[in-house]
């Protein structure tokens, strides 16, 4: 299936994935690590090991800096 992947702060990607692909596969396809992002579907995060069901997702990178 074709999925529109919007990486917040970056460009939108159109990604073709296999029917059994997971959200982790989707994230890897846009050169990000599933460990460093949250994948949002309709404003809620989805588990990275779940099969892709949405045709449009937002990917938000986790950042932590601020004090040092």
């Amino acid at each position, binding site marked *: 299936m074709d999925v529109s992947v919007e990486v917040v702060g970056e460009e939108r990607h159109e990604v073709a994935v296999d029917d059994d692909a997971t959200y982790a596969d989707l994230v890897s396809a846009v050169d990000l690590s599933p460990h460093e992002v949250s994948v*949002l579907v309709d*404003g809620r995060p989805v588990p990275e090991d779940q099969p892709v069901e949405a045709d449009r997702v937002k990917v*938000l990178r*986790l950042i*932590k*800096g*601020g*004090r*040092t």
Partner: protein
Amino acid sequence: MSDLSLDATQLDRYSRHIIMDEVGPEGQKKLLDGRVLVVGAGGLGAPVIQYLAAAGVGTIGVADNDVVERSNLQRQVIHADADVGVPKVESAANFVTRLNPDVTVEQHHLRVGPDNVESLVADYDVVVDASDNFQTRYVVNDACRLAEIPVAHGAIYKFEGQATTLVPGGPCYRCLFPEAPEPGTVPDCATTGVLGVLPGTLGCIQATEAVKLLIDAGEPLAGKLLFYDAMEMSFETVPYRQNPDCPVCGDDPISSVDEVEYTGGCAVRAD
């Protein structure tokens, strides 16, 4: 001005607030009576403390366990060259004393963690998360949500920043990021660098949110994550929703931070 609870000096100092209908003498009194805890007195915390003090927030708690280093001074604008080696909480208090005698700084020279967070946040109206690590961010989110204290969250990385406001009844940090990434998978500013003015922009947004919450004016940045890209000079707002399965604000919430293992992913302990 008819509000006699503000003296003549205060009426002068805060005149640009008082003249506005949205703040007025009542709002200024709320600020002077307000108590805000700033977690972290570094890049983000510095502009937060500076503007909250200037605005006349009566009590500012500052929690930080570090001392000022020379490499901090490129962005941490409340600390000066002569403060190198001084605890940041002490340097912050000295800065505020020079800026505004109306403000009391409560110094908490400690690292915020599960053992101290609940008693620490309990006495404050608003908490500003200006920390730099996931353990602190999750423990602050969890404790504040359990105590129904709003949090103005901010985080920065190189040329970009994120801000959101976590209010009781709205989604919390875990509704956006359910668990922390494994240690070492997300770089920090010490290893990647950070544009010196970047925390100024994000910290001012956090301070703005704290002021709005104290005076109960405007719309907080709740259920929305504001993403700022300094290189593109662009802002983007990402909406997010409360998660019914969230272990902190969902349908079956935890009752204490003691139920969370604040290492690795900061996950709730299995029964």
